[in-house]
């Protein structure tokens, strides 16, 4: 039986989100037996470095690549080079539509943002002022989420404050600091929507922020809808530290990436886009997801 070497290339290795995808990939590779999963990407979110890493994988003649695209035009070229070298290429988490990739596994980031906005609108239809916390200003998928949130809240009574979104550069400490700054700047701020799990990656800092605003949250004056559904985030939701979570399924992305690449190698046909779906979590269904 031939053994395949598949590389999974995240946008940035310093983001815990991709660790989950890696774990899914490793688990699936082990189950499959004839597949090796290599996890390697730029440490920080930086497109040129990602392109160089793809080059190195082409040199190494890996059998398949699953890429979370950091920058669409530059990855489009890299993907073309990889495909030309006979490597099966798919994208996950962030897509490069129009490139030579064989499939995309993940969520539609616009939908993701729409879902976040919809959750907020459902939780509190009476509206108010809201602010968004984003990761880095250069990330296309995050920009799409922001657009999604804005679009779904258009026409509702929610209005975005000036200075939103703030960018925390994927730094959990900074994300929490920005949440308290946003609240200080606009004391009647009705909702904060971090479009990534960053503030919750600093659970104690996040709890301190929530506790300080406990009264308002309990009174329904401040609503917190947070993206991503890592375990610690679910626990925080369970304990009443946020109103809702919307999450992608990175673990599944990792698993499916292996399956899809293997299928491609075996010459099977794969669907162009594989949505792993979103988890919409509130107090009601959090216990189920935690198991």
């Amino acid at each position, binding site marked *: 039986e031939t053994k395949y070497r598949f590389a999974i290339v995240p946008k940035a*290795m*310093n*983001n*815990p989100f991709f*660790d989950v995808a*890696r774990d899914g990939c490793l688990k699936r590779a082990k189950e499959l037996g004839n597949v090796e999963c290599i996890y390697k990407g730029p*440490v*920080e979110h930086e497109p040129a470095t990602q392109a160089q890493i793809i080059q190195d994988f082409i040199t190494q003649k890996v059998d398949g690549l699953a890429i979370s695209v950091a920058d669409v035009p530059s990855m489009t070229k890299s993907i073309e080079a990889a495909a030309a070298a006979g490597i099966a290429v798919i994208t996950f988490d962030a897509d490069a539509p129009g490139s030579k990739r064989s499939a995309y596994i993940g969520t539609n980031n616009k939908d993701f943002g729409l879902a976040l906005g919809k959750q907020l609108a459902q939780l509190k239809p009476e509206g108010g002022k809201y602010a968004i916390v984003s990761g880095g*200003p250069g990330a296309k998928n995050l920009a799409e989420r922001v657009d999604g949130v804005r679009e779904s809240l258009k026409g509702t009574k929610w209005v975005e*404050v*000036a*200075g*939103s*979104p*703030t*960018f925390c550069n*994927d*730094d*959990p*400490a900074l994300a*929490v*600091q*920005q949440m*308290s*700054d*946003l609240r*200080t*700047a*606009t*004391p009647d701020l009705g909702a904060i929507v971090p479009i990534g799990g960053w503030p919750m*990656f*600093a*659970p*104690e*800092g*996040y*709890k*301190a922020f929530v506790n*300080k605003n406990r009264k308002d949250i309990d009174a329904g004056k401040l609503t917190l809808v947070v993206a991503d559904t890592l375990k*610690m985030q679910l626990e925080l939701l369970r304990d009443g530290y946020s109103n809702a979570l919307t999450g992608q399924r990175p673990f599944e992305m990792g698993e499916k990436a292996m399956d899809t690449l293997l299928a491609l190698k075996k010459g099977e046909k794969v669907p162009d886009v594989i949505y792993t779906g979103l988890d919409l979590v509130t107090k009601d269904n959090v216990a189920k997801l935690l198991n």
Partner: protein
Amino acid sequence: MSVPSETPVPETAAPDLQVTFTNVGATRWWHRGVFASQTAYVTLALLALIVVMSFASPYFLTEGNLQNVAKNFSFIAIATLGITFVIITGGIDLSVGSLMAFAAMITSMVMTSLSTPGLPLSSLFVHLAADGKTVVANVPGLILIVSVLAGLAVSLVVGLVNGVCIAVIGLSPFVTTLGMLSIVRGLGYVISNGKGSFPGGPDAVYFYALTQGDVAGVPAPFIYLIALALVMALVLHHTAFGRHVFAIGGNEKAAELTGVSVPRAKIEVYVIGALAAGLQGIIISGWLGSAPANMATSYELNVIAAAVIGGANLAGGIGGPLGAIVGCVLLEVIRNGLVLAQVNSYWQQTLVGVIIIAAVLVDRVRARLL
């Protein structure tokens, strides 16, 4: 003991030492000590900035926000105190950011592991009660102390390696600590498999109390900072070690020739820098409730910038705790103020740069005019 001066600019000597020099008048106060230093003028710029910010946002001067600001800047200020020692000797330490994360991870991993019955050594600290709950076998707080000491111990080792490479082997501080930045960050990913770790176990509550608590509204990290800054002022200006640190920054060869043990002092300085960074990381992780592997990424630039903005000179020989703190406050006020003023996020970054340059410009204007 007199007030510690920020730069080694001398205070005017007692009058009886002066009489012999007929061509020496009285030094005006603004030509003397702290007042003649960059620190003083950056402080002025800071005050001006605070006034501007308080107009830009009515919430800037509220108690809650000031507490926030005090807490936030204390988070890099302790590391800045440490690196100021290094900078005074003319060195640089790029590994502080990585080391913050690494020390924090070690502390929380040790804390968790010592509190989990079954893991190595944990039997000394905890045992399982009959009902399956973990019970502290020892003095409460001991786990906390051991794990913080573990975090500081790795910092010490990293500082020692930096110091030996630089002071004994003679490598360039920039290259050595840049290499160490990479090594330590990598090790952090290795030991945690990229996941980071969380403080856990029965002592975590003490840990949180010590890092998140406040005394009469003053955040705990701020209190540590002030205490450490006072110690630092004393050490720099009133001990032989402090004097040697300045001498090395002024003229390393001269210090060597006059019998200062330069390698030893330099090693000590890098160890101090590393310990401060480690402590800083541990405190941050207490506040965050987590020690993520990517914590404090590229904080080294902020830390060095804070020290330099406050008046420390990368060429060596100048610097002090007051400047370090003022630099940190300035950076935090800029950050916090721009968010409060609801400036567009893209413009924020540009404005941060402009304000940093403007703040140090004040000192140059002074140098031209006075």
